[in-house]
């Protein structure tokens, strides 16, 4: 009686009731929490107030809501150059459940199209690593963990799919990957066991913590809703130069006609024009053009030009080209840059038909 009334008063006094609505974690009440409720009744008999009576306590234990979301952090396909290594795709993995979990990670190569890129090759040496220092970029030797350990509810980890790009790829080639995060048991050191089924079909057990899957369908094949895992997709896109070379020739003059309608007769001067065009998405650098002069011709000294500018053909190191020095019997021109998107370089030289 007095103790009960005092208890009720104490409870009311200790409780803090802020004017603002209390903020609830998005993931919700932690699993294992026991929620108790009992009611009290006050009444009178013959107009005399009686002792407050309490009900028994109705209780249940909050179960483990398992929910994980994987999202790619790449806003577009990751541009890669053939032959490059340690190129990575980025993802976030969020624990949307109410319990600390580990997550197993895997990269699944897939076909299809994403970010406008269609899959037609696989990267080499593909691996998955967790961003250990949280800097959003893959640091080899630092980001070495291959699973997510003890991720709190409402927390996010950054994960990379890392691979090497084969050399024999061309501009526009694509390699698509799904990152799959599988919920595993948390609460202990080391990697927890994968949780692949929940207790949805199990008999009721009000005071035992059971698991309930709440995840949605992911992008990977076989990733259904409410299966304890989720996935998201990203892509590598090969971005490189795309060079085409054309070579034309014209008769400049001959001993008989001069430069009026000259013919290709012995003693005539021929001009060769080599054009290199880059229609790719990256600049091409150190483009080396080597052209052996035809049989039965003799090179015309000082005729070598690059983009209309004369080159000293008898010295190799002073400019971009030479004749018969870097390569015997041939014109050699090293163009520093042929820019992407239609840039070109033009090499011209002359010979005399013998």
């Amino acid at each position, binding site marked *: 009686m007095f103790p009960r009334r005092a208890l009720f008063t104490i409870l009311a006094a200790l409780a803090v009731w802020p004017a603002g609505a209390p903020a609830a974690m998005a993931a919700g009440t932690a699993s294992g929490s026991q929620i108790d409720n009992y*009611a009290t009744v006050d009444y009178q008999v013959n107009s005399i107030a009686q002792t407050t009576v309490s009900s028994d306590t109705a209780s249940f234990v909050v179960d483990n809501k398992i929910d994980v979301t994987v999202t790619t952090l790449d806003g577009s396909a990751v541009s890669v150059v053939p032959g490059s290594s340690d190129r990575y795709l980025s993802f976030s993995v969020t624990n949307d459940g109410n319990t600390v979990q580990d997550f197993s990670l895997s990269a699944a190569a897939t076909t299809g199209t994403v970010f406008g890129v269609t899959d037609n090759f696989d990267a080499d040496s593909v691996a998955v690593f967790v961003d250990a220092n949280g800097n959003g970029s893959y640091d080899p030797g630092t980001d070495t963990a291959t699973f997510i350990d003890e991720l709190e509810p409402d927390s996010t980890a950054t994960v990379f799919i890392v691979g090497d790009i084969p050399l024999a790829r061309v501009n526009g080639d694509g390699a698509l990957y799904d990152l799959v995060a599988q919920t595993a048991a948390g609460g202990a050191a080391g990697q927890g066991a994968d949780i692949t089924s929940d207790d949805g079909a199990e008999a009721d057990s009000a005071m035992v913590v059971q698991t309930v899957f709440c995840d949605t369908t992911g992008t990977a094949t076989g990733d259904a809703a409410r299966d304890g895992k989720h996935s998201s997709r990203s892509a590598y896109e090969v971005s490189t130069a795309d060079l085409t070379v054309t070579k034309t020739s014209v008769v400049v003059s001959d001993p008989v006609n001069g430069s009026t309608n000259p013919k290709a007769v012995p003693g005539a001067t021929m001009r060769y024009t080599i054009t290199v065009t880059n229609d790719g998405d990256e600049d091409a650098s150190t483009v080396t053009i080597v052209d052996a002069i035809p049989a039965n011709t003799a090179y015309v000294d000082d005729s070598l030009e690059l983009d209309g500018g004369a080159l000293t053909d008898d010295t190799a190191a002073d400019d971009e080209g030479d004749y018969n020095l870097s390569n015997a019997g041939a014109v050699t021109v090293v163009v520093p840059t042929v820019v992407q998107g239609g840039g070109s370089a033009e090499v011209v030289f002359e010979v005399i038909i013998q």
Partner: protein
Amino acid sequence: MRTPTFLVMCALILTAATPAWAGSIQLRTVVEKEIETVDENGETRVHRVPADQVIPGDEVIYTIRFQNIGTEPAGDVRITDPIPVQMIYKIGSASGPDADVLFSVDGGKTLAPADRLTVLDDGGNPRPPVPEEFTHVQWVLKTPVVPGGSGEVSFRAQLK
């Protein structure tokens, strides 16, 4: 104001009535979930089961059953239920036969009907409360409960 215990006991000795400390009203509280099942005819039926596999976002139903197990009618019956901290009261779900329903948003210090509840905002101005701010539900039965009489009151709440 409560009559001190010793006065009650004296009254009982004089009238030789049922001892007051036995408690005339018995209360039982249960918590349940609603489950939808599809029967053989393909029709969906909703029934209640003990609350289990409750995860954040789920709604449960608290039902308090009362019975007068004494020999005298019980009057001015007020049943009070504090809403657990991790639960959010579902507005409009408190129900009970022949009862006025009151609520508290200040930890039980004051009780009022739903449309007269206010809390103070940061500027000190009164505003209606949001569901998370409800702390207690109280049913005030309009008629006495006769000996052997019984009934139930209930409300719904969502787990945060």
